[in-house]
């Protein structure tokens, strides 16, 4: 059952040195606050798993908390390269295991549904087959010939940032749900950080929007603006200026370290970070009004007795 915690307590308790971790968010709702907390607490030797490492893992790798990266696309979305990760790979400073999007998703789903492997036909024709021990080929028992398969990828922990959660850890997300459900269902444990904690009744009024159940969540932390500099639909825009600045700063190891010293190690938590960036965050929070339509979940309570 999910327990309320502060972000720093949840990270201290659940992120173990040497473990594997998936911070979710497919360019939207990326858990930057949790990543910074892990860097601040110097929890090291981590295996970082993500379809798209994005700036969030670039920062963690620049900070030296990871020894291995599992990914399928390396890029600073809409901006260009991830310099810290490229330096680490080209300099042989980090181990990595590389997938394609489709096969990494299949590997997470295999883990989530307790399958020994999943077929990933497209990978069979690529050179990646030779470089990732998580791929193999088997004979199709139904006569289709040889087919590539992928072993499950089961993170020890998923950290998921969402728009709202209730007091029990039930989660609602709108806009891009990305990789959240696959990563959370594949992982052994889940931490949820949320923009808002709302009453259970609010979630129950709209069950189709609920993405994760509290039964699968270990800890809930209230963390407004925790996805900054990425977006949260209906709440704040992406800080694109920062994405470009990071590309500039991280082009040298010293530049990346100076940023981390100033904005992660030099601050005692996310509140101090939000205070430091208050004006900018207020600008980003100016989003328009575009509410979703409502539907009727009403039932006919008089038709109750099926034995009638």
């Amino acid at each position, binding site marked *: 059952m999910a327990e309320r915690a502060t972000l720093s307590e949840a990270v201290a308790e659940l992120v173990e040195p040497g473990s594997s971790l998936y911070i979710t968010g*497919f360019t939207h709702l990326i858990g930057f606050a949790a990543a910074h907390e892990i860097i601040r607490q110097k929890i090291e030797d981590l295996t970082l798993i993500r379809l798209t490492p994005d700036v969030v893992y670039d920062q963690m790798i620049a900070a030296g908390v990871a020894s291995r990266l599992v990914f399928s696309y*390396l890029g600073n979305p809409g901006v260009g390269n991830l310099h810290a990760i490229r330096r680490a790979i080209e300099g042989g400073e980090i181990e990595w295991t590389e997938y394609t999007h489709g096969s990494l998703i299949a590997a997470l789903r295999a883990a989530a549904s307790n399958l020994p492997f999943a077929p990933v036909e497209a990978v069979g024709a690529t050179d990646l087959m030779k470089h990732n021990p998580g791929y193999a080929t088997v004979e199709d028992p139904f006569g289709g010939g040889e087919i590539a398969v992928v072993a499950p990828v089961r993170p020890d922990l998923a950290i998921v940032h969402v728009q709202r959660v209730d007091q029990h850890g039930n989660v609602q997300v709108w*806009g891009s*749900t990305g990789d959240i459900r696959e990563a959370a269902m594949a992982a052994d444990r889940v931490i949820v950080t949320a923009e808002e904690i709302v009453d259970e009744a609010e979630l129950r009024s709209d069950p189709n929007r609920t993405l994760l159940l509290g039964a699968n969540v270990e800890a809930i932390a209230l963390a407004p603006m925790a996805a900054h500099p990425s977006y949260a639909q209906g709440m704040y825009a992406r800080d694109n200026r920062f994405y470009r600045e990071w590309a500039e700063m991280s082009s040298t190891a010293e530049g990346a370290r100076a940023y981390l010293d100033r904005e992660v190690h030099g601050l005692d938590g996310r509140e101090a970070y939000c205070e430091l960036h208050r004006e900018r965050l207020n600008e980003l929070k100016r989003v328009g009004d*575009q509410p979703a339509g409502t539907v009727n979940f009403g039932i006919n309570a008089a038709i109750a007795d099926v034995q009638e």
Partner: protein
Amino acid sequence: MLTAAAGFLGNNETVLVGVGMPGQAATLAQGSHAPELTLVYESGAIGSRPARPPLSIGDPTLFAGALQSLSVADVFTFLIEGGRIDTAFVGAAEIDRLGRLNSTVIGPYESPKVRLPGSGGACEIVQYAKRSLLLSPLQERRFPAEVNFVTSAPPERAEILIVTDQCVLRRAPGGDEVELWRLYEGVEVADVDAVVGWPLRTSPELERMEVGGGIDD
């Protein structure tokens, strides 16, 4: 390149796009001959009508007013792997005679000279989309006879279109190699031959192509 690419998108097609040039080409097509184009983004935004150019594929502007919001897994399993994408934009640093793409690495994989972004969805897209469309300037280093690393390899049924700044190359569905298929005004076969790293075959359907003045032309 943008206007040429936009011209290949049909009105009732489902098109997988990204940010930058692919998105701009799709928007250009939507604004002219293909108003009914359905835009699909890997992030799960389906049928987007973005109010401004998106910053990344998870941008809220792609979801506000979209037809549908899917998970990344649903986009891959149902739309991409399910063969429901008519045209998909892909990126690559190299493309070879067989229409294979490299977006992974230059130099040895374990100790790369240049580390590229990797497959992302390209491997599955090239395998299952009816047509994959690559935008690439015609430069020698981008068209070797054999790619340094096979990130994506098209199956026989797939069509690969490579829209360059001088011509359009194509590996036809059922074809065995990439051929010269369209030549822009003012460009000669020899100009293309001089750049491409293998004896380039000319398609029996080779035609001149007029490319109107677009955003980048």
